[in-house]
């Protein structure tokens, strides 16, 4: 259904903005969980429209792993209520971050409209939203000081790439989609491990502390 897909794609973009704007680690993780669940929902809506079975599998996998399991794992790794609720700083400051985020979304939307595109199951504006999500995720990784948020930005960008995959080639096959999920799982494991080590060695996950290597 075109309506459901348009609305879900928009909500995915809003969830990514929420990730950029989130003030607490807890909020950021919840935004990522919401984004993943919406993405899974979108895949399931596409399945309802087109009856391609692997879309259903993808949707359920996304909701299960990225929407529920991984946020749970990350929350577990940052447990301790002070850490979860502490406000996190930006490298650039909030208004700048918001403006740059809006600017990047604009760039994504314009770039997508310039690319020649065969609409398959989803319409063209969704490609623009997807690229905007990728850019916003990468920007979050660059703009935030906290390690968990950098991780969350990468995960959000990964969701954006998955969304591009859904727009461009729903039949590209389980391979890329499973590869992404596998990558996410292992990536989160590795990064989570590094974050835990950061807690031990540096006693914080503020990456502005990690600046000893220079030149």
């Amino acid at each position, binding site marked *: 259904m075109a*309506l459901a897909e*348009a609305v879900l794609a*928009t909500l995915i973009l*809003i969830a990514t*903005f929420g990730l950029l*704007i989130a003030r607490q680690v807890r909020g950021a993780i919840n935004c990522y969980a919401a984004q993943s669940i919406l993405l899974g929902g979108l895949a399931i809506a596409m399945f309802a429209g087109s009856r391609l079975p692997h879309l259903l599998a993808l949707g359920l996998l996304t909701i299960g792993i990225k929407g529920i399991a991984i946020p749970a794992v990350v929350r577990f790794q940052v447990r301790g209520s002070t850490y979860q609720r502490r406000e996190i700083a930006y490298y650039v400051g909030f208004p700048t971050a*918001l403006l740059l985020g809006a600017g990047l979304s604009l760039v994504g*939307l314009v770039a997508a409209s310039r690319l020649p595109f065969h609409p398959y199951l989803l319409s063209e*504006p969704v490609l*623009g939203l997807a690229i905007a999500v990728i850019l916003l995720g990468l920007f979050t990784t660059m703009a935030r000081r906290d390690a968990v948020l950098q991780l969350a930005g990468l995960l959000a960008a990964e969701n954006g790439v998955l969304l591009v995959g859904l727009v461009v080639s729903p039949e590209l096959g389980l391979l890329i989609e499973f590869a992404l999920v596998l990558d996410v799982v292992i990536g989160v494991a590795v990064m989570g491990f590094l974050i835990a080590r950061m807690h031990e060695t540096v006693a914080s996950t503020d990456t502005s502390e990690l600046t000893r290597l220079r030149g």
Partner: protein
Amino acid sequence: MLAAAIGQCVAVATVLLLAPLLKGIIDNLKAKVQSRRGPSPLQPYFDLRKLFRKERSASGDASWVFRIAPYVAFAAPIAFAMLIPVLTAAPLSWAFMADMVGSGFVIGIGGYFTNLAAMDSASPYGGLGASRSRLVSSLAEPTLILIFFAIGFISGGTVPFVANNILYTTSALISPSHALIAVAFFMVVLAEAGRLPIDNPTTSQELSMIEGSRLFEYSGPDQALMEWGGWMKLFVLLIVWLNVLIAPDGLATQLTVSAFAIAIASLAVKMLCAALLIVGVESALAKIRILRVPEYLGGTFVLSFLAVVLYSLGR
């Protein structure tokens, strides 16, 4: 002609009578979410009756502004209700008094007089509330203007009835930019009507109030009118959100009793859904710091900006 006028009156009466019920339902559901029994949904009507029977009193420093403000604050949403599609899909007698931008002014005049009255009474809380409320309203302006422009782009006109019809009949309804506008507008409605996460309507801490402290000095019938005006403001803003942006179904296309009955019923259902959404949002989110309000409204601006861009790119 007469039928149209009667229809208009019915619409206004619906807004007048159902607004307290909306407040009652929201309070009741919120309490249930918090595992309490909560007040009855009809409680606001009892409150109004109580207040009308009480004596009014005013501070010695108050001027004529203080005395007329309740009437203006009560009349503004009513005038606004005549301009928007409450029950009918076609414009009624008074609908062309103002378009969307004009109706923004109409509802703004109520807030303007409330602010003046708050400052008039020389209570410090009033001044505080007035300045904060100004902050929220002025920051919500850019978003509202962009939303009006976006609706104007899509539908080719700025009168809500025209926009309504076009949005309903064309596939412009099914697009991401439309969804973005709807989300942005809902966030602005929460801000303008003084709901969480901007302002807690049930708080008793005066220093944290935005809207509530402006009503402090009023008593008796004046207070009843001010409060009723506040409830109607939320009600009509939600009507705009529901009937113009989200789901203009069930609006009456003919001026018959049955069509109006269906319209009222569908409005009730839609309002109930909106009430559930508001209860969900209010129960899940905490009030954000006043410093963060510009960030919140900045976010809504970004969303509406993206909606406009997305729409124009799709041309």
